[in-house]
């Protein structure tokens, strides 16, 4: 659906994007993570045919973005980080304007507008003037505008920036729903928890370079080859540490907090070995109040990747 191959953008002496490659399938929600100035927006704008790349190729639905930008444009819905809206126009008129600009047949427009308003939960605001809508509603209206021509790919640049927590949740739910509808979505953000919930693939960018891009689980797997098990006891940890030494699957033990009796172990065994270990500890008379696997979150992944732990 969307293929980037060694895409590069150079402004004078500054390399904004350095050899980015990526492949996305229908239904993929790709989280583009990186600090401000990392090159996320430039990459998205190149895909949106608004900036020409210096070198490399990109295609959407098999159509070359560089050679045939006008054929690509109807296939994409682009929501910029700072989007503009027309004043003195009602929400449905705004959508009708863009639907007609995308040459959606006049007879189909009312039902399409109804559908996208319903999808973006703006049905009740149909006749409201856009300048009277809240920031979150305007953001959803902008997203609705991206959907009126039923694009296959959505390019969303910081879609949740400047929104209150509730509006953030709403827009995240909306993006997840669009992913379930089979749309390929690229969402950029520098706020990691924003993307963690609904992206199945992520790419981490820094100073124009894509440091890593893959499925979230694959990246975690690469960064954290052994499991991390967090154990919390009701008493001193010395006995537990002694007991853990006799297990070959336990490759490392770190005391997190001596006072709260919690420690973290590196465990190379599978789930069955995990169960065996827990049973052995309990049967050995150790008072375990908590025993669970800890997984790296996006924040950990980002910190590990951007500090050069993975190359």
């Amino acid at each position, binding site marked *: 659906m969307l293929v980037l191959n060694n895409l590069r953008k150079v402004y004078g002496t500054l390399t904004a994007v350095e050899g980015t490659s990526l492949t996305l399938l229908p239904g993929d929600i790709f989280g583009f993570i990186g600090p401000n100035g990392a090159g996320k927006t430039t990459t998205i704008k190149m895909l949106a*045919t608004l900036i020409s790349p210096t070198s490399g190729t990109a295609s959407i639905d098999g159509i070359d973005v560089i050679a045939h*930008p006008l054929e690509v444009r109807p296939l994409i819905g682009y929501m910029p980080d700072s989007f*503009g809206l027309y004043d003195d126009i009602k929400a449905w*008129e705004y959508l009708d304007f863009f639907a007609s*600009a*995308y*040459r959606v047949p006049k007879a189909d427009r009312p039902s399409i507008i109804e559908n996208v308003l319903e999808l973006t939960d703006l049905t009740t605001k149909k006749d409201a003037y856009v300048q009277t809508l809240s920031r979150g509603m305007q953001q959803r209206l902008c997203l609705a505008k991206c959907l009126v021509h039923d694009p296959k790919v959505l390019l969303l640049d910081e879609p949740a920036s400047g929104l209150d927590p509730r509006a953030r949740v709403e827009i995240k739910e909306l993006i997840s729903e669009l992913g379930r509808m089979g749309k390929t979505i690229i969402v950029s953000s520098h706020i990691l928890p924003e993307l963690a919930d609904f992206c199945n693939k992520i790419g981490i960018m820094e100073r124009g370079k894509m440091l890593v891009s893959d499925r979230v689980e694959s990246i975690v797997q690469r960064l954290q080859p052994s499991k991390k098990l967090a154990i919390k006891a009701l008493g001193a940890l010395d006995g537990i540490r002694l007991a853990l030494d006799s297990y070959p699957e336990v490759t490392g033990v770190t005391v997190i907090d001596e006072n709260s009796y919690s420690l973290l172990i590196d465990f190379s065994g599978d789930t069955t070995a995990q169960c065996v270990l827990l049973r052995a500890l309990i049967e050995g008379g150790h008072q375990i109040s908590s025993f669970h696997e800890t997984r790296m979150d996006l924040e950990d992944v980002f910190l590990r990747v951007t500090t050069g732990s993975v190359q």
Partner: protein
Amino acid sequence: MNVLPSHSGRRESFKNWLRLTLVDNPMFDESKREQRRFLRYGLAMRIVILALFAMFYLWLILESYLGHTDGSEPFCYLELVLLTLALPASIYGSISGERERATWDALVLTRLTASQIIFGKLIWRMRIIALIVVLSIIPIIVSRFNPDSYDTTNWMVFRTQLVLCSWSLLLCTFGLWVSSSTKRSITSLAVITGSLIGVLLALPVLYAMFTNMVSGSQTNADPISQVMYTLNPFVCMGPLLGTRPYGDSPLIAGGEFGYPQIAVFLGLALLFIVFTYWRIIRLERPIRGMR
């Protein structure tokens, strides 16, 4: 193999272009937004504005009918001033404003063509021109029934209207081109205002000063001054209406006065439309590809 479109195919695509540009053009919605901007003032304010305008306009019509002087010239000058002020003021932000508002990217990503954008932006300004021309022409026609009016068979007043319309179109297309070439509306306004002051006022004055030409009489002026004055609508209005003698121009015969101006203004307007078209194509196609 590249097959050239047949005659009927070309005719179909031209008809399609006409339909998209002049009939099904979503950009025409802009006029709806402008009307709403006026309606936002509230009922009381709207009534006051309309009442003041109606009173002034009625006075103009009565004065045309009952007055003891010919009203054509002041009306035409008033019309010219209105058009010269209103059109640049309405068009300076038409494209630069879209870029400032960050709506331009959304616009170019749609299937709108450059000609749809240009005509969409021009069409409602043309409505302003039509409105001002119609409102101005009514008192002029009324003044024809005034026995003190000058020669009622003198139809130069209508040729003057054509000059004014072509001048207005030139103002619109020039403004649109400047707006498409600047990133900020304020820059666009400054360029348009500066150009108008420069061409209509500063340049002729400076030229006259440097060539020691005595202003007032165009009869013996050199060809450059002739061109500057002939193409200045504020100057050519008098000779057009016959209220001031034109004299023996080496460039235009007295009876033809007005037609060359119309031709030049329309020609320049067309040129600015082409410039704007190229500019929009450049703005919307950073990546190569043809529409």
